[in-house]
């Protein structure tokens, strides 16, 4: 799931790193960081908006606990509404997997957030697994139908998730 938090950091060097470390260590995948300097608090702290992806609620809770333990003040916490993830496998020659990913990334609200390749033996096809993260379910099915078209054109076997409809 995609999580958005706003935390207040003291305006001294090293503060951001201190906050980011537990997120990546506990499996969060940071997507964007935005300093809101114009909203500096009366006590001189700077709000930082952070968007990251995390596997499940339990991991998120661990991350939040670690942040609080470091004295990071979290002022807002929101799950990005309806952030959806779907996994797909592609089987075939993967000489231009980058192109497939670029085509998906070019869609608004769609991002290939994970890629794993298993090369086949000599003369055999390879397999690629990708995780596609989208802002909502509608974009997820749009991404899947785009992937279907790409796979058909490149003669790849596409294996989508049973739940992907």
């Amino acid at each position, binding site marked *: 799931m995609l999580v958005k938090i706003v935390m207040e950091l003291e305006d001294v060097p090293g503060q951001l790193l201190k906050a980011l470390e537990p997120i990546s260590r506990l499996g969060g995948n940071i997507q964007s960081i935005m300093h809101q300097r114009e909203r500096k608090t009366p006590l001189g702290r700077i709000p930082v908006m952070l968007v990251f992806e995390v596997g499940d609620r339990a991991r998120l809770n661990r991350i939040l606990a670690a942040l609080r333990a470091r004295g990071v003040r979290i002022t807002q916490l929101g799950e990005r509404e309806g952030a959806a993830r779907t996994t797909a*496998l592609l089987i075939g020659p993967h000489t231009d997997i980058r192109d497939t990913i670029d085509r998906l990334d070019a869609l608004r609200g769609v991002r290939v957030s994970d890629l794993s390749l298993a090369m086949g033996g000599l003369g055999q*096809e390879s397999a690629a697994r990708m995780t596609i993260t989208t802002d909502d379910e509608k974009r997820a099915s749009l991404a899947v139908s785009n992937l279907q078209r790409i796979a058909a054109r490149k003669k790849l*076997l596409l294996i989508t*998730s*049973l739940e992907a409809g």
Partner: protein
Amino acid sequence: MRLVLVGFGNLGRGLSRALIQKASFLRRSHGLIPRVVAAVDEFGAAVDEKGLNLTRLLRVAGKAGTVAAYKGGKRGKFALQVIEGVEADVVYELTPTNIKTGEPGLTHIKRAMRAGKHVITSNKGPLVVAFRELDSLARRCGVEFRYSASVGGAVPLVGLAKELLAGNEIREIRGVLNGTTNYILTRMSREGAPFEVVLREAQELGLAEKDPTLDIEGIDTASKITILANSLLGMNARLKDVKVAGITRVRPEAIRLAQEAGQTIKLIGIAKRGSLEVGPKLVPLGHPLAVGGTLNAVTFELDLAREISITGFGAGPRETSSSLLGDLIDIHRTLGG
């Protein structure tokens, strides 16, 4: 009830054994006294209007390779003659499947219905080629028509959907409907063994045909999806309406990638109004359709009950005789027995 068995292969024999073993149970629990008055195979026929001795029939047919070896049996092509000529209540059509023409089963079933006989079949061919035609012919002829064993083997899909879930609208049916491919996928996922090796092994175990094309190309599953679409979703679907992909390109490495993401790969057939599809799909480990070995599994998506899943053996003579016998008891009850 007087029965005619057309086809005395795996299922004809499996049914005969079940009839022997369950004779007193059927009488006691269902008031049903089945009597096989004729058995036919490709090479001959055995007829006795008082009832064949099934133990003897199994023995002599097992030895000679044809039911014609039974006392008084005849060699030659007799299926139609027996179906039309021998006095009987129910014809079991258990001949090999041909999904292109439906024959010889299609003609057997039509002739049996026109001769006023109820029909029970396990043969997908006639159902894939001419479901609507057979369904309405049965009605016009005033006979019962059952085909539980044709899809899912022992798993009572048709009865579950038509009887027990009758209050629901079925939105979608999806499932693992081919034991051979499920065995191959399971072995590849557990041992990482290559496709060709596992396929050869499945053939040696008798789980896959010498020509495994229909199974591994997904066509057998597509046939079953066609039957389910017609019989349970009220569609008028043909085999060519099903978008089909098989498992021949699925390698152990692909399954490993799936497993690393908490999923596995299954050959899934999906039937919903407006879209029929067969292909390998990612299924979460622990999902009702993530069954191993030769098992079949089906999920019905319903308006009231939401989801119902069922699992069991999709083939095997003893297992499938459960459906063949169930159909007989169902007809017996329908007729007020």
